[in-house]
């Protein structure tokens, strides 16, 4: 029975197929919102699904001079990392499927796996554009990762636990967005950096470096990276909502909250322009990290 449950939780719910479909819906919502902000009609609701099926059915080209195992393995590892992270997060406002003390750190590292894989894929692709993209991806990772981690540590310290389910139980009665507004802003912007949305889309800047680290990927590999990114979007939005916007509560209300967060993110995407990579790093270390550290300090002193 236990095994069946474990397999179900990995393959179908909450991770696996339902999460992939959920990720596509979130991606569509994001694209549609950006389109509405730009006064367009925007894509139809099945657009991410059609994109994915088309990519999977396309030819997959292996460029000359790449390591074959890495080239085909990295997209799988990236998607697996994002899907595994979902097991410890209250997806769709339901209790996490698995939980143990310290799973917050595991989740954050699993979420970084996608970025690492993208960087490695770019380096492995043996093309100048993908190498520049990979360098930027990894540079940016070092910029936002620490402030994002510190911003999510705020609620964890307030709740006196590093276990997501306990933190979420604590935030249900304490709205962290009111108690730690600085942390919320840093977590939200850090999430946008993690997802490489504008203004942090320098790693895949179309106008400069074609498509960044994934320039040489076609077909299935590209589709897996795309799915991984939308899954990461669901997991990240869920994490920030559960930590800062009043815990889980009713799944429907939780979904409305995540959509509200997505609306804010789409708004920021439409109004902000791309930062240069040095501006991104400078902003995170000069402002983001120091503010997050100050908040942690305040928490320690006031506690």
């Amino acid at each position: 029975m236990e095994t069946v449950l474990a397999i179900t939780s990995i393959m179908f719910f909450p991770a696996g197929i339902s999460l992939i479909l959920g990720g596509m819906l979130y991606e569509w919502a994001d694209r549609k919102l950006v389109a509405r902000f730009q006064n367009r009609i925007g894509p139809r609701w099945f657009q991410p699904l059609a994109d994915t099926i088309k990519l999977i059915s396309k030819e997959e080209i292996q460029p000359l001079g790449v390591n074959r195992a890495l080239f085909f393995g990295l997209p799988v590892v990236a998607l697996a990392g994002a899907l595994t992270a979902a097991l410890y997060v209250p997806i769709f406002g339901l209790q996490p499927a698995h939980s143990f003390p310290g799973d917050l750190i595991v989740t954050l590292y699993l979420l970084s796996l996608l970025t690492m894989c993208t960087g490695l894929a770019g380096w492995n692709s043996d093309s100048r554009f993908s190498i520049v993209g990979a360098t930027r991806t990894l540079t940016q990772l070092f910029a936002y990762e620490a402030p994002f981690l510190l911003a999510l540590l705020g609620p964890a310290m307030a709740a006196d636990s590093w276990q997501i389910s306990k933190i979420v139980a604590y935030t249900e009665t304490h709205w962290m967005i009111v108690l730690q507004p600085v942390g919320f802003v840093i977590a939200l912007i850090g999430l946008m950096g993690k997802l490489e949305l504008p203004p942090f889309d320098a790693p895949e800047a179309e106008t400069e470096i074609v498509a960044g680290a994934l320039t040489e990927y076609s077909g299935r590999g590209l589709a897996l990276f795309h799915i991984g990114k939308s899954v990461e979007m669901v997991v990240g939005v869920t994490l920030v909502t559960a930590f800062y916007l009043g815990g889980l509560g009713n799944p429907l209300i939780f979904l409305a909250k995540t959509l509200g967060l997505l609306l804010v993110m789409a708004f920021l995407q439409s109004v902000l322009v791309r930062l240069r990579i040095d501006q991104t790093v400078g902003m995170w270390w000069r402002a983001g990290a120091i503010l997050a550290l100050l908040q942690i300090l305040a928490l320690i002193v006031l506690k």
Partner: protein
Amino acid sequence: MIATPNLINKVVSGITTWARVNSPWIIHFNSGSCNGCDIEILATLTPYYDIERFGIKLKGSPRHADVLICTGPVTRQARSRLLRIYEQMPEPKFVVAVGSCGISGGTFAGCYNIVGHIDEVLPVDAYIPGCPPRPEAIIDGVVKLLTHLKNGTRPEPIKPQLGEQA
């Protein structure tokens, strides 16, 4: 009842065709045109015409694209680059020639530096005439290509002549 492989094939090809028709990602290449058609293509991509409604997206990398949108006659210098970009695209791929020059060489026909029109170099699937064609005409041409795809009647491509250096 056991589904026959034939039926499975039919369903799978139906789904992939549906996906392909609803998500054509394009890449744009200028092989020697006067930029008139390129400006019209960029105008087509603006929010005013909003072709993301049809799932059309402009991609920077030929590895990601399905449809190669070419403008202009093929100059001697652009020929090898055009071929290289075409060969970098994964199958199945389609080519749309935009503008009079792409179709016949237009005003550049017979110039000393011109190889010829686009279908002397690549198999073209759809032609969009005009000098330059309006954005509506470009959208119409792409939709016609997609209709052909949907019905499974890919327009008969003209065979490329890759061997000879013109």
